């Protein structure tokens, strides 16, 4: 009989619009089922309950470590309205709804506050889900090299130069890379571009200095495939080309990389790179490629670039366009059919977020020689080493923010590393997931400016539940 009698009200209560399970549900911005009330000290417990009757309270409790009480209210009752009603009662000092608080993993790095490009794509929520990936995932950065180690190297024309590991990469795991420009085992950065890109992928994070990286717990593989001015100045005979990129891709794949970032491109196609990309995806490696910065090129406006143009041919290779702070296509970002996804690339001509810095992408890097190549060629051998030395002069300066699809691409590469660590281990599936959860920006649907839209790390990492 008790079962039956108990069953009737149970059914009735369940049929209410907002059923009240025993565990208070989270709904809206406030905890439902209770409000926070501070009574004047002279109010007795009986009086508290009587006062709380105005909100149909079912109980008043005094939690530990608090100078207030919880007033239990029907879950269907709006906590904001309940708090308002309760605050009108004599004997109540204050009555407040209890705002829901979520964990937000915000790096403590000194200059993180200027890294709007992470905040804008919701990386703090994404890091709650996957805090920086894992060491097992190796991301190869095919670029101008990376300031990955402390080493002295001798160059044919300029002699011995001393390189340092970037301070904010000292906590980042590294595996052996290669320099396909000098055919060396020390792919040091002789420009600053590669170190910046590597920082976006996995700059040491939560160390109180520098900035953060997308997948800051993953392992970097520095692979130098791009020739810099310094390399030429230092006596390089043959500038690197697509063949070096092709070799770099194959090196990364065979070296165990799961993700490759290529913030590079050129005006001519090359089957060498195409075949290497095929090799990469065939071996389970995801590749992110900068879409190009030719939109405002006066000589060849919006000309396609390679290997980005190959991206749409492969499931597992994505061409990345650049966005500014407002998620509009950056003015330089190439818009072509092969663009598949967009990420922050910055626009140093603007300060839309009002942080008094240009809206470029901020990562630690070195500052290359301030002298022009011509001056270096003419006078380099006679100048003091400090003037031309590409060693790390200043590892971080807020005024060296970079912009470009080169900066956008490592956002996607770093995120792919997080996805791989989260469980999506196929390059084609990584691309599909990134597209599936991208937030559409620009013209509705897929477009040549931003592809499927801007990267949405949190939604992608959460994947699919049963109904949402």
């Amino acid at each position, binding site marked *: 009989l008790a079962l039956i009698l108990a069953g009737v009200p149970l059914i009735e209560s369940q049929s209410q619009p907002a059923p009240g399970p025993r565990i208070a*549900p989270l709904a809206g911005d406030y905890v439902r089922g209770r409000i926070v009330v501070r009574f004047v000290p002279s109010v007795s417990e009986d009086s508290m309950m009587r006062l709380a009757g105005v909100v149909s309270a079912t109980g008043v409790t005094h939690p530990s470590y608090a100078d207030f009480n919880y007033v239990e209210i029907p879950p269907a009752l709006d906590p904001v309205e309940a708090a308002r009603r309760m605050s009108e009662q004599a004997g109540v000092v204050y009555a407040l709804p209890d705002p829901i608080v*979520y964990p937000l993993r915000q790096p403590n790095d000194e200059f993180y506050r200027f890294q709007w490009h992470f905040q804008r794509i919701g990386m703090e*929520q994404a890091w709650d889900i996957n805090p920086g990936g894992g060491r097992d995932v190796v991301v190869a950065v095919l670029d101008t090299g990376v300031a990955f180690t402390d080493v002295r190297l001798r160059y044919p024309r300029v002699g011995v130069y001393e390189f340092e590991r970037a301070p904010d990469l000292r906590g980042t795991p590294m595996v052996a890379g290669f320099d396909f420009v000098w055919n060396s085992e020390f792919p040091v950065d002789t420009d600053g571009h590669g170190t910046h890109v590597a920082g976006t992928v996995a700059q040491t994070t939560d160390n109180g200095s520098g900035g953060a990286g997308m997948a800051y717990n993953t392992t970097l593989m520095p692979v130098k495939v791009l020739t810099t001015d310094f390399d030429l100045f230092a006596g390089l005979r043959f500038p690197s080309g697509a063949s070096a990129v092709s070799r770099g891709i194959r090196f990364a794949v065979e070296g165990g990389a799961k993700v490759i970032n290529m913030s590079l491109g050129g005006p001519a196609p090359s089957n060498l790179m195409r075949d290497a990309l095929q090799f990469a995806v065939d071996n389970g490696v995801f590749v992110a490629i900068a879409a190009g910065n030719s939109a405002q090129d006066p000589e060849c406006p919006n000309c396609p670039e390679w290997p980005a143009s190959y991206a749409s041919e492969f499931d597992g290779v994505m061409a990345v366009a650049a966005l500014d702070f407002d998620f509009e296509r950056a003015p330089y970002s190439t818009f072509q059919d092969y663009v598949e996804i967009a990420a922050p690339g910055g626009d140093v001509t603007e300060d839309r977020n009002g942080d008094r810095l240009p809206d470029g992408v901020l990562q630690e890097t070195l500052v290359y020689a301030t002298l022009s190549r011509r001056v270096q060629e003419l006078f380099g051998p006679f100048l003091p080493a400090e003037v031309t030395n590409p060693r790390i002069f200043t590892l971080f300066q807020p005024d060296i923010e970079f912009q470009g699809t080169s900066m956008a691409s490592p956002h996607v590469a770093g995120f792919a590393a997080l996805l791989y660590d989260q*469980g*999506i281990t196929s390059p084609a599936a990584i691309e599909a*997931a990134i597209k599936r959860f991208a937030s559409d920006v620009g013209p509705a649907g897929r477009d040549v400016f931003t592809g499927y839209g801007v990267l949405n790390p949190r939604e992608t990492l959460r*994947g699919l539940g*049963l*109904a*949402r």
Partner: protein
Amino acid sequence: MTWNATLAAMSLGILLAGPATAASPTEEQTSGFTESEGGVEVRGWVHGGLISLASSQSFEALSGSSSGTKFGAGGQLNFANGVFIQGGIERFRKSGTRAFLFNGELFPLGISDTVTVTPITFSGGYRFMSEARVVPYVGGGIGSYGFREVSEFAEAEDIVDDRFVGFQLLGGAEIGLWRGNWLSISTAAEVEYARVADALGEGGLSAEFLEDDLGGTTFRFKLQFGFGGKEKLPPPEIPAPAAPRRAPVPMPQEVPPPPPPVREPPVPAPALPEAGPPPLAPEEPQPPPRQPPAMQPPPVTAPAPPVPLGEELLLLGHQKLSIGDHSGAAADFHRYLQRYAGNKYTLALGLFCDAANVQRQVANAAGARELLLVPMTSRGQSCYGVYWGIFDTLRDARANLASIPMGLRAPGQTALPISRLLR
């Protein structure tokens, strides 16, 4: 064997075994009767069950399984004609991890995700009334199916909390376990098919698999508690003769000991007057007797008295019992009860269809005059309802439950108005 195949086999078994068992009534004491004295039984239950979900691929992707356990409770009203209405609530919870699906390959993401389904259902149905121990039933109705999905790292807008309307069809069989004066306990095995269309499929894995049904097929085991129920015996098949307006006869206990059993030949029944005033409704109280003098029973205590007509019937019945003439005895008892005891009460011992079992009851009664047989039919078969004593009030009858000889006692025996035997 897969779970679905197992469930299908169990379902088929229940649907076939229920009626099959019911079609061959046992000779045991009847129990699990559902009709209350007032014609309605109130029943509550708790249950546990297994569900095979309709959106099997989606649940399989989320949790690695497309089935799960359910628990719930409910209440039911059972009417005398076999119709019942019921309402129930149950809960099904399934946990797994969120995932990404690409080209048929599933990538679990390690983010916990819990789905809770809370159906509140209202059904009606029909219970195939019989004296058998196993009573099959079928039904159907509608339900409000609560659906809540929460997951790790969910923000408020990520939580799915909604309710959908669906329908369900059910069938099962119940078995009586125990019966007291006001409480009965029974179990039931039940299969339910529920369809809750358009509850899923808008997003998530269910959209990937194009599945929209939140229902499924449930196998349930119920433990039921009935309140106020009493035995329901089918009405006798013999036509009810007109009931003469006669004064109540002395209780059977007051009847003098019967003569020694006469083996053979059977004593012929005396001719009985058939004429009389129009019959009274059995439930109506008998008016004060206004019998013609010729019908007045003679005093029992008079020396060498003529045996009262009513008592003659009882005596004749018991004489026939003693020689194994069950049908003759039952006819005499029925006639006696109809004429002289329609407003009294008795204790129901059970329904027996096999002559050997009837004879066993007679033997266990050891010639006691309280034993009464009444002709009955059960599913077209001639049977006998066996009763004990005739009492003026229901309270008296209940008070005499303990007077039933040990050899005749069985669970579920209860008091009931004699008028109900005579319908």
